[in-house]
């Protein structure tokens, strides 16, 4: 069965990439997926699968412009659609790997997406990612003291950021402590770091987005955290202790960093919604099989009207979620029609999408676990893995509450939230 996909929205590259991911997922993820939970620290199963996708299939260079050897996703007219499709297809196999891939692209979006392509930094960082070895980036935002306050730009305008960037000649000197970024715990080769050039000031011109290679003196990644799920996504503390980087490692400069950071909030919302859509589709596939096999009241589970009603609700959520994800993706494809991706309107629409689709996915996963009862909580049926994993997607980027505030602020013109 296929859920709604508007074919005229689909780019040729997107369809081709989806086929590649399917080939990869069937060969390199599904046979090992049940080992991922125990592999949260070592990544003996996760990393080879990730490396195969990023290096073997070449996705690692995907966002860089063609002149730097990339696929030019960032300067494609289908930037949003392709991003959504990648996250959807990878999320079908494992949302942890999806976020690892997505977050490698995420900091690079600041400098690789048209019209704001920073050619100098693309030239420099594309060499790092062109290596025939797994190369990972991380977006270091969250800090111990304020959680999602960092992402709450419209209200706080960077006031609570404590990671500092001080210009010393031609170098930025970075000091600070970040928590929880995806792809940390020793994985990251490059960080995009949210800093302030004037602590305590609520002014976006002091918001700085600075790239820090992970191998520099003063950078320390902690041990990965143990979590309820999402084993393929490693998270840890990171400390920056007098780390020095060249001045031009700041993505854009005063005012622009905050502006384009909003754009990566929008794409982060899209990616989160798309990967949970993929997880829902895999849950559907598992239910399709198991609810035909298991029998209740003398017939297959799915032939009982009470069960069929729940299955229908699940299918309806997926159908509508896919439509919503690709509608928003197309809006991001066309800033000429729908406005800049960093606009308050587009960020609010992204927040609304993430809020709704992540809620739908958590609900779908919860219902699927309940339907299968004993088998629902059994890790060999993968439904419970999705149930644990997707909860994290709902929680990150400020969780439901920050989404709600951004949505309310825009759609109800709230001034005091």
């Amino acid at each position, binding site marked *: 069965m296929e859920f709604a996909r508007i074919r005229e929205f689909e780019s040729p590259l997107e369809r081709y990439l989806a086929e590649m991911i399917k080939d990869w997922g069937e060969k390199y993820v599904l046979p090992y997926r049940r080992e991922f939970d125990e592999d949260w620290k070592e990544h003996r199963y996760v990393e080879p699968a990730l490396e195969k996708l990023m290096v073997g299939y070449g996705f690692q260079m995907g966002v860089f412009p063609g002149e730097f050897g990339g696929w030019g996703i960032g300067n494609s007219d289908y930037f949003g659609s392709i991003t959504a499709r990648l996250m959807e297809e990878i999320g079908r196999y494992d949302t942890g790997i999806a976020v690892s891939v997505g977050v490698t692209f995420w900091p690079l979006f600041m400098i690789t997406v048209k019209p704001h392509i920073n050619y100098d930094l693309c030239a420099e960082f594309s060499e790092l990612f062109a290596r025939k070895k797994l190369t990972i980036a991380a977006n270091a935002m969250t800090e111990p003291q304020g959680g999602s306050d960092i992402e709450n730009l419209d209200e706080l305008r960077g006031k609570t950021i404590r990671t500092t960037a001080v210009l010393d000649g031609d170098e930025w000197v970075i000091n600070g402590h970040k928590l929880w970024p995806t792809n940390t715990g020793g994985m990251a080769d490059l960080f995009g770091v949210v800093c302030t050039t004037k602590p305590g000031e609520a002014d976006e011109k002091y918001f700085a987005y600075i790239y820090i290679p992970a191998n520099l003196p003063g950078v320390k990644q902690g041990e990965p955290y143990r979590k309820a799920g999402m084993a393929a996504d490693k998270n840890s503390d990171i400390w920056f202790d007098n780390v020095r980087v060249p001045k031009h490692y700041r993505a854009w400069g005063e005012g622009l960093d905050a502006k384009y950071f909003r754009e990566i909030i929008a794409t982060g919302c899209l990616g989160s919604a798309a990967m949970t859509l993929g997880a829902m589709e895999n849950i559907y596939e598992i239910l399709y099989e198991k609810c035909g096999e298991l029998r209740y009241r003398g017939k297959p589970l799915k032939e009982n009207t009470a069960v069929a009603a729940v299955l229908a609700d699940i299918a309806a959520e997926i159908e509508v979620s896919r439509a919503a994800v690709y509608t928003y993706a197309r809006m991001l494809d066309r800033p000429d029609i729908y406005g800049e991706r960093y606009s308050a309107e587009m960020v609010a629409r992204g927040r609304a999408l993430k809020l709704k689709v992540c809620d739908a996915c958590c609900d779908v996963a919860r219902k699927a676990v*309940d339907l299968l009862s*004993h088998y629902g909580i059994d890790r060999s049926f993968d439904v*419970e893995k999705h149930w644990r994993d997707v909860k994290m997607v709902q*929680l990150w980027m400020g969780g439901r509450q920050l989404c709600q505030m951004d949505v309310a602020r825009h759609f109800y013109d709230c001034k005091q939230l």
Partner: protein
Amino acid sequence: MRTTINPLAELKSDTAEMITKSIKEWAEKEVMPYRHEIDDNFEMAERAMKKLFVDIGMQKLLVPESAGGAGLSFEELPPILYHSFSEIGKADAGIGFVLSALVASSASAIGSEVFDFMVDKLSSGFCRVSIVPPQFGNDDFRGFELAKAVEKGNKIRIKFYGRPLNSGFDADLFVVFCNYDGVSLAVLDGEEVERGEIVKTAGLNASRNCDVRIKAEVEKSRIIKGDAWKRLEIYLNLCLSSLCVGSAVDSCRIVGDWAEKRFIRGKPLKDNTVDAEVLGEVAKEAIEASMAAQFLAKSMLEDRSDDEIHTLSAITALKCSGAAFNVADRAMELMASQGYAREGLLEKQWRDAKSIAALLNQQHSLLELSERFFASKLWER
């Protein structure tokens, strides 16, 4: 912070107070210091279980005093179960889940010939009892399949393949729902059961489960006929409901602590209205669950029919397991990554509560309620 209510007067007893105090001490000493690693280290859970089951004597609540047990009567049992399981639920729902099956099975056997057999087992050291409920499969019991029981001379041959509710891998006794004389319970020694490999599950890790194959011939005295299966479900539902109350209260405590310490938008989380609303909801869920479980325990002391109590117990278990999950799930929203991390301790309550809710088979329970309250003819052939 106050996310509990004082228990109903009818549920207060000196014995309950004494047992609860022992369980609190047990939790502080045997569980809380190791709680974040207990899911990865079964030996820790097993050591804690032994202390609770044997040293504190929870596995012998119903064992006669002459055999070294507490010899509690049905009149004393419900309040004690409410208080003790609520306390255990604050510490480790998985351990409580294993104990629930033992207590419910013991209660179902009182007054039957097989009770002495169970008493011997319960009195001779650490014991786990696995319940083997009806399974997905053929339609021979309300849409489910029972273990097959066939008379063979003076014995009954029991045949089954499937998954127990709990502890299939470790159990010393199995209490099997079978199709003898309607629905009966067959009590089997662990040695009469062939076990598969441990099944990895979302939570309740103190209960190591597996698929089991049974081909056993047992004396007729090992069969408990009549409404014993209903009594088993009533006590199981009471224990699980109370366990979920404890889980919900603990999740409230965890998120309450977080909401005090965590500053967002320049003030404690609890002082932001959007977050305070969530806190209000989790408190409401926890207190509702506590009220429902207490009402069940109190009702079990009154002169009501088994059928009525059976139905009430199913409703209560659905309510309390749903509440325990909702509390943990919404609390996790506020705690975000910290709630999702093992060290935050909330995620264990979240996984355990969800596992209990799933095992209660909500869809089926709702159909049973429809049959009772609206005379739906769902199982008429």
